[in-house]
């Protein structure tokens, strides 16, 4: 045997790794960063609609999330992209004119109390971005429901962007209303085309249904989100609101309005599908989505708030452990479920 061959057969550099020795194409890090990437058009749209304030608000929320993860998270956990995604999503749920310090605080709270306290990525029960959003909503209800009018130009600073920490802005912003607010409190409906393209008032990321649907479709195609969740949410919202609209057309809006107004698209595609906080089983995904859809309709039509997507998702997040227990797959060769 030649020396070359002997060298080539030397066992010293062989790795001993447990099977399987092949690895599928999916990677947690890639999933997170891809989701971030599909949000770029949505962010761009927000900037186009609401001006540079939009970018600053999103940046502040992201900084809050990433900074908290860096300070209190496990070493290297920033690289998985989940904290950045949380911050980005939180930013997209905020109005353009919210003071930057609030966005930062929301990001920090969401990551700190919504994620790190549970042990970090994968362990949390509630969607951290929505925990941050719900905290801000409860803490600063007025700032969080002050909606600058979109389409006022690129370089406009909206509202209270530069308010000093802990202080309110006090700027007299030109404010508009969201389509849902108009519907709930003034019984004015918004044309469908505006809803679909996103030229209406609202949170930074909730206005363009089109871009969100495109991003979601790509993620579903790559299996980076469970398509059953958005499909069941949207189907239940459409079905319930159509039925209610049929009974009382004057009192309740129809399905197109319900689907394309408010944060439903962003919530259904990007928030409810957060893998960590949604059911692990497919049957559970259907139930979970249906529950979110039903709660959204309940809160929007009969609740005190114009919008209920955030609360619907948080409430169903709380039910996920329950749903997971109830929908375990039936184990091969048994009549029984994997977990009881």
């Amino acid at each position, binding site marked *: 045997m030649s020396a070359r061959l002997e060298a080539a057969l030397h066992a010293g550099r062989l790795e001993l790794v447990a099977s399987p020795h092949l690895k599928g194409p999916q990677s947690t890090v890639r999933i997170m960063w891809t989701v971030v990437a599909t949000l770029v058009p949505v962010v761009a749209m927000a900037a186009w609609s609401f001006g540079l304030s939009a970018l600053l608000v999103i940046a502040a929320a992201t900084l809050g999330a990433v900074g908290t993860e860096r300070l209190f998270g496990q070493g290297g956990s920033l690289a998985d992209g989940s904290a950045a995604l949380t911050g980005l999503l939180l930013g997209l749920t905020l109005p353009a004119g919210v003071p930057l310090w609030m966005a930062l605080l929301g990001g920090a709270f969401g990551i700190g109390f919504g994620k790190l306290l549970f042990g970090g990525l994968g362990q949390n029960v509630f969607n951290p971005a929505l925990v941050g959003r719900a905290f801000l909503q409860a803490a600063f*209800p*007025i700032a969080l*429901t002050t909606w600058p009018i979109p389409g006022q130009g690129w370089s406009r600073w909206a509202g209270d962007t530069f308010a000093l920490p802990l202080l309110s802005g006090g700027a007299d912003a030109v404010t508009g209303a969201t389509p849902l607010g108009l519907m*709930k*409190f*003034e019984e004015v409906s918004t044309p469908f085309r505006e809803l679909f393209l996103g030229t209406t008032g609202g949170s930074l990321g909730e206005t363009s249904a089109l871009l969100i649907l495109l991003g979601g479709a790509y993620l579903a195609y790559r299996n980076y989100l469970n398509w059953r969740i958005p499909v069941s949410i949207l189907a239940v919202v459409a079905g319930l609101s159509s039925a209610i609209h049929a009974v009382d057309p004057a009192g309740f809006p129809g399905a197109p309005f319900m689907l394309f107004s408010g944060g439903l698209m962003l919530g259904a595609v990007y928030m409810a599908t957060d893998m960590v906080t949604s059911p692990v089983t497919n049957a559970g995904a259907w139930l979970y989505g249906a529950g979110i859809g039903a709660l959204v309709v309940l809160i929007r039509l009969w609740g*005190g708030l114009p919008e209920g997507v955030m609360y619907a998702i948080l409430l169903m997040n709380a039910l996920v452990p329950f749903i997971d227990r109830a929908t375990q797959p039936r184990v091969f060769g048994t009549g029984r479920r994997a977990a009881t």
Partner: protein
Amino acid sequence: MSASLPTVSGTPEAPRAAEEGRVPVVPHTSSPRLVATLAVAGAIAGLVLVLVHQWTEPRILEHQARVLDEAVVEVLSGPSSTRTFFLVDGAFTAEPPAAADTASADRVYVGFDAGGAPVGVALAAAEPGFQDVIRLIFGYDPAGGAVLGMKVLESKETPGLGDKIEKDSSFVAEFRGVVAPLLGVKQGAGSGGDDEIDMITGATISSRAIIDIINHRLEAVEADVQALWRSAPAAPSMAGGLP
């Protein structure tokens, strides 16, 4: 709380332990003695409470009456005297028959000016708001059909937002002289009608609840109040607060 107390009810074991723990392990005391002890303790407790009650009750009642009186005076813009009318058998009367249950009967408070002429009726009402039941009192002029003033007595609306229904003086001021039934409009979006109330931005549900409470209340007793008004109620014989 029991996070720290060992007998907490949580695990099935704990109650079982509790079960066993109930078996008396201490020297037995005779039943009459037990009953007697508790009876004596109860009697002493009752006695103490009656004493404290007798001392505090007049003060508490006085305070309650004062609060109500102040509210009535506020929503009727300072009448010189007021008088309570009870709804008995479909009509308001100042002195209900002895048999009537005045404790739970519906009532209104009529305010009179210095000359003894009635200036308006104050009505209390309550309905669910955003968070919980809102209780309020408002003054009403049956002749002109106008609300004279409104004061929230109790609410749990969101601090800083919904609680503006009682803390926002411009909102409260809107209820002076507005014609019923009231109509809530978005701030600045009204047509200037004399039945319009500008709702609070961001607290639409709470604002609307106030308007609804007043409208519903008036709807329910309007006829009886008009009847009372037509009967030209008399001022109390001596000026003063509510009975």
